[in-house]
C-alpha cells in the first residue's frame, strides 16, 4: 500500500522511458513509427533511384497521349486516336459492367441454390450440394477458360449460325455464334419519348400505390394486391401508350433482329463471348459461395420463429417474407459484401479470355506500349482499391440499416466530427441510437432527397470533367495541371462521392463529408481549378458561387433541419 501512495521520487529519468510502464507503451510506439517511416522512405527512395538508373522518369503525362490501339467493347465513344486516359476509362467501365452484371446474377443463383439446398426434396437438395461443392472447389480461372473454350469450339461460325428457337416453336431471334450472342435490340424512333415517359409515370404511380397499400394495411389490416397492380402499372401503361401510338402512326419502338452482313451479324445487341464467358463463370463461381451464406442465414433463424408465425396463421410465403428473411439478412449481408468484393477483383482475370477490362487496357496494352509499369500499376491498384472500398462502404451502410438496433447500442467510439457535432445536432442521436422519438417526419424527406441530388450531380460533373471531356482544345488535360490542383481536385471528387453515398443511406456522418467537400470546393477555386467548366454552358460564376451556396444550405439543413427518423420508420410500426 505504501508503495502506491508514495509520491514519485525525483524527476524524470531517461531510463524510465523503458522501465516505467507509464511511458513504455508510448516509447515502443514511437520507435515502431520511426522504423515504419524509415522503411517506407527507403522503399520509395529505392524505387525512385532505381527508376532513375533505368533512365525512366515518374510522370503521368503519357495518359493524355493517343492510345493507338482499338478496343472491341466500348461503352463510351473511343477510337484508336483517343487518349490512354480514355482507354483506361473504357476498361474501367467494362470492369464495372461485368462486376454489376456478375453481382446481380451471382445473387440470384446464390439465393436460389441456397434456398433449394434446404429443400425437403432430397434430389433437389443433393443436386445443389453437388453444385456448391464442385464449383467452389475449382479455380475460377479454369472455369472462365472452360466456358470460353466451349463457346469457341461448340458454337457455330456466323456463316452457319441461325436464330435459336424455343422447342422448335417460337423464333427467339437470338443468334449464338462462336464470336458472341446477338439479341434483338430495341430501336427508338420519333415518339418513343412518350413510351419512356409512360414508363416513368408508371413507376412513380406504382411507388405511390405501394405506399397507399401499406398505409391501408397498417390502418385496417386489409391486404391489398400489390404485385399485380404494380406490374400492371409499370409494364401495362407503356404498353398501352405504345399500342395507341402504333395504331395512330408508325410504331415508336421496333425490335431490330441481327442479320448476317459480310463477316459478322449486324444489328441488335451484341454480347461478346468474352463478356458472356466471364460473366457466367464469375456468377456461377461466386453464386456457390453466396448459396452457403444464404443457407447459413436461414438456418440461423430458430425454428421456433417459423412455428410461432404458423401459429399466428401466417402462410409459408409470408412467413419467409416477414419473419425469416429479415432476420436472416442480418447474417447474410456481411459475408455477402466480401463475395461482391471477390467477384469484382476476380474480374481482373478477364484478360485470359480477351475481355478488355481495366487490367486489359490500362494494366495491359497501355502499360506495354508506354513502358510505364509503376505509373499504370499504381493507377490500377488505386482503381481496384477505391472500387472495393466503395462496394464495401455501400454494403456496410446497407448493413447498418438492416442490422438489429438496440436501445443502448451506439455506432462506435471512433473519434469523428460526427460525434463532436452530436451535441449540436440533437435529433441525429436518434439515428445513431435507434431510440425513436415517436414522431414520423414524412414531410422533410423531400428536402433530404434534394441534398442527395445535389451531391450526386456534383460528383457526376466532377467525374465527367476528369475523364470524359477528351478535348484539349477546351481545357488543359488533368495530368498537366500543377500538382496541388491535381490533388485538390481528386480529393474534392472523393469527398463528394463520400458525401453522396452517406446521404443516400441517411447516415449521420454525411455532415463530415459535406463539410469536407465545402472546404475542398473553396480550396479548389482558390487554387485555380476551373469549377465553372463543370457546366460550361452556364455563365461564369454560377457553378462556383451557386455550388458554394447550395452546399452551405445543404450543410445547414443537415445540421438544423428536422429529418426523417428512418430507424424509427424501419423498426417501429406506426403508432397511429
Amino acid at each position: 500500500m505504501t508503495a502506491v501512495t508514495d509520491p514519485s521520487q525525483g524527476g524524470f529519468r531517461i531510463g524510465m522511458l523503458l522501465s516505467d510502464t507509464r511511458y513504455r507503451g508510448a516509447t515502443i510506439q514511437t520507435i515502431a513509427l520511426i522504423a515504419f517511416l524509415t522503411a517506407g522512405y527507403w522503399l520509395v527512395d529505392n524505387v525512385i533511384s532505381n527508376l532513375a538508373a533505368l533512365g525512366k522518369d515518374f510522370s503521368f503525362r503519357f495518359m493524355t497521349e493517343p492510345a493507338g490501339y482499338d478496343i472491341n467493347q466500348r461503352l463510351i465513344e473511343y477510337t484508336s486516336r483517343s487518349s490512354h486516359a480514355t482507354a483506361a476509362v473504357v476498361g474501367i467501365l467494362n470492369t464495372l459492367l461485368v462486376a454489376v452484371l456478375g453481382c446481380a446474377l451471382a445473387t440470384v443463383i446464390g439465393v436460389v441454390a441456397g434456398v433449394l439446398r434446404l429443400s425437403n426434396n432430397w434430389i433437389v437438395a443433393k443436386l445443389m450440394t453437388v453444385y456448391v461443392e464442385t464449383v467452389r472447389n475449382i479455380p475460377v480461372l479454369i472455369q472462365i477458360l472452360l466456358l470460353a473454350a466451349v463457346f469457341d469450339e461448340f458454337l457455330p461460325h456466323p456463316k452457319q449460325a441461325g436464330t435459336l428457337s424455343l422447342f422448335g416453336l417460337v423464333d427467339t431471334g437470338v443468334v449464338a455464334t462462336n464470336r458472341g450472342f446477338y439479341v434483338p435490340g430495341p430501336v427508338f424512333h420519333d415518339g418513343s419519348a412518350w413510351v419512356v415517359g409512360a414508363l416513368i409515370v408508371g413507376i412513380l404511380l406504382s411507388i405511390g400505390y405501394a405506399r397507399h397499400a401499406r398505409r391501408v394495411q397498417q390502418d385496417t389490416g386489409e391486404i391489398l394486391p400489390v404485385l399485380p397492380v404494380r406490374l400492371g402499372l409499370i409494364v401495362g401503361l407503356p404498353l398501352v401508350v405504345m399500342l395507341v401510338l402504333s395504331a395512330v402512326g408508325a410504331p415508336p419502338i421496333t425490335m431490330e433482329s441481327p442479320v448476317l452482313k459480310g463477316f459478322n451479324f449486324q444489328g441488335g445487341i451484341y454480347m461478346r463471348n468474352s463478356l458472356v464467358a466471364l460473366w457466367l463463370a464469375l456468377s456461377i463461381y461466386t453464386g456457390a459461395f453466396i448459396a452457403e451464406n444464404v443457407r447459413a442465414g436461414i438456418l440461423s433463424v430458430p425454428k421456433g420463429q417459423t412455428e410461432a408465425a404458423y401459429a399466428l396463421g401466417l402462410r409459408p410465403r409470408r412467413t419467409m417474407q416477414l419473419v425469416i428473411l429479415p432476420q436472416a439478412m442480418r447474417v447474410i449481408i456481411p459475408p455477402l459484401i466480401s463475395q461482391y468484393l471477390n467477384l469484382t477483383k476476380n474480374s481482373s482475370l478477364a484478360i485470359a479470355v480477351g475481355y478488355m477490362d481495366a487490367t486489359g487496357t490500362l494494366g495491359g496494352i497501355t502499360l506495354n506500349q508506354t513502358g510505364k509499369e509503376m505509373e499504370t500499376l499504381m493507377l490500377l491498384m488505386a482503381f481496384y482499391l477505391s472500387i472495393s472500398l466503395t462496394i464495401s462502404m455501400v454494403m456496410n451502410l446497407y448493413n447498418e440499416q438492416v442490422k438489429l438496433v438496440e436501445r443502448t447500442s451506439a455506432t462506435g467510439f471512433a473519434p469523428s466530427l460526427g460525434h463532436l457535432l452530436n451535441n449540436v445536432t440533437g435529433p441525429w442521436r436518434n439515428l445513431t441510437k435507434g431510440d425513436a422519438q415517436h414522431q414520423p417526419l414524412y414531410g422533410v424527406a423531400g428536402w433530404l432527397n434534394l441534398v442527395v441530388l445535389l451531391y450526386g450531380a456534383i460528383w457526376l460533373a466532377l467525374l465527367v470533367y476528369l475523364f470524359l471531356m477528351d478535348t484539349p482544345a477546351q481545357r488543359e488535360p488533368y495530368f498537366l495541371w500543377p500538382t496541388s490542383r491535381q490533388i485538390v481536385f481528386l480529393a474534392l471528387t472523393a469527398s463528394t462521392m463520400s458525401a453522396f453515398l452517406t446521404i443516400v443511406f441517411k447516415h449521420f456522418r454525411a455532415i463530415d463529408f459535406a463539410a469536407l467537400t465545402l472546404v475542398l470546393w473553396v480550396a479548389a477555386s482558390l487554387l485555380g481549378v476551373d469549377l465553372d467548366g463543370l457546366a460550361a454552358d452556364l455563365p461564369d460564376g454560377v457553378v462556383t458561387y451557386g455550388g458554394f451556396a447550395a452546399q452551405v444550405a445543404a450543410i445547414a439543413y443537415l445540421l438544423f433541419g428536422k429529418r426523417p427518423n428512418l430507424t424509427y420508420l424501419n423498426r417501429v410500426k406506426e403508432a397511429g
Partner: protein
Amino acid sequence: MKHSLILGAVAAIGLAAGAASANTLEDVKAKGHLQCGVATGVPGFAFTDADGEWQGFDVAVCRAVAAAIFGDPKAVKFTPTTGKTRFTALASGEVDMLARNTTWTFSRDTDLGFDFVGVNYYDGQGFMVRKDLGVTSAKELDGATVCIQTGTTTELNLADFFRTNGMSYEPVPIETNAEARQKYLAGACDVYTTDASGLAATRSTFEDPKAHVILPEIISKEPLGPLVRHGDNEWGDLVRWTLNALIIAEEKGITAANVEEMAKGTNDPEVNRLLGAEGEYGKMIGLGKDWAVNAIKAGGNYGEIFARYIGEETPVGLARGLNAQWTQGGLLYAPPFR
C-alpha cells in the same frame, strides 16, 4: 517476395556504392550461364524439341552468344516471355538479353531504355485468312473479326491500317501465338494478323496449311532483332558483334563444318581477324581469341541457321527475300570486321 527484397537490398547497396549500371558480362560469367528471353513458342523461331531443348532461329542467337562467352552453346537458360512480359523481364534484369521476334522501334530504343543490337529478320505485318472466304486483299476485310496479340507493334499497325482505309473491324485480343492459333482454327476470328514470318510459321503447324492464304499486303516494316538493356555498352557490343559474326561468316563462306579449318589461317585477312588467327579482336569485347569460332560452331553461320529452322526446306518454308546477303540482293549487311 523475400527473394525480391534481397535483390532490392543488393540493388540499393550497388546504387549507394555509386555503381549505376552493372557489368552484365561479369555477371553472366559469375553465374556461369546466359539468361535469354525467348518467345513462348513460335514454330521455327523458338520452340522446344522432343528432348525438351530450346531450338529455333531466335534461340540460335542466344546459343551463339553463350558459345562466344563460354565456348559452350548449352551454357544458356531460357525464359519464355509473352508480348506483355518481355520488356519487364529485360528491364528488371531477369534476362540478360532478349531474342524474341521484337520489332525495333524508336520509342523502344529510347524511351523504354533498351538497345537493339541489330536485325536478324526483316519482316512485315501480314494477314492470314481461310481460302474459302474468297478474300484476296486486305482492303476487303471491312467488318472482319481479327485475332491480334496484345502488347505488340502489330496491334498499333492494325488500328492505323483500318482507320486510314476507313474500315471497321472487331479486335480479339489474345496473349500467345498458341492461343491465336486455337482461336483462328476454331473460327472465332476471320483473320489472324502478325509478322508475316510468324504467320508462315503458324500456318506450317496447321493440319491443312493449303486451306489458308496469307494476303499480299504487308502493312508495316518489322525489323526483328535481339536487344539488351540500355547503359551497358560493352555488353551491347558483344551481342551486336556475335550477330554480325554470324552474318559475316555466311558472307565469307565460313560454316560450322569448316570453321575449325579456316581458323588456322586463310588468305582472307578479314576471316583471319574474325576467327582469331590475326590480331587481338576478342580481347576488345572482353572475350577469348576463339569467340567467333565458338559462336559459329554453335549453330553454323546465319544462312545455315536460317535454312535449318525456317528456310524453304522446313515446314515453315520462308524464302530468304529481304533476309538475303546484300551481295544477293537482300538487306543483310554487316559492318566490316576490322
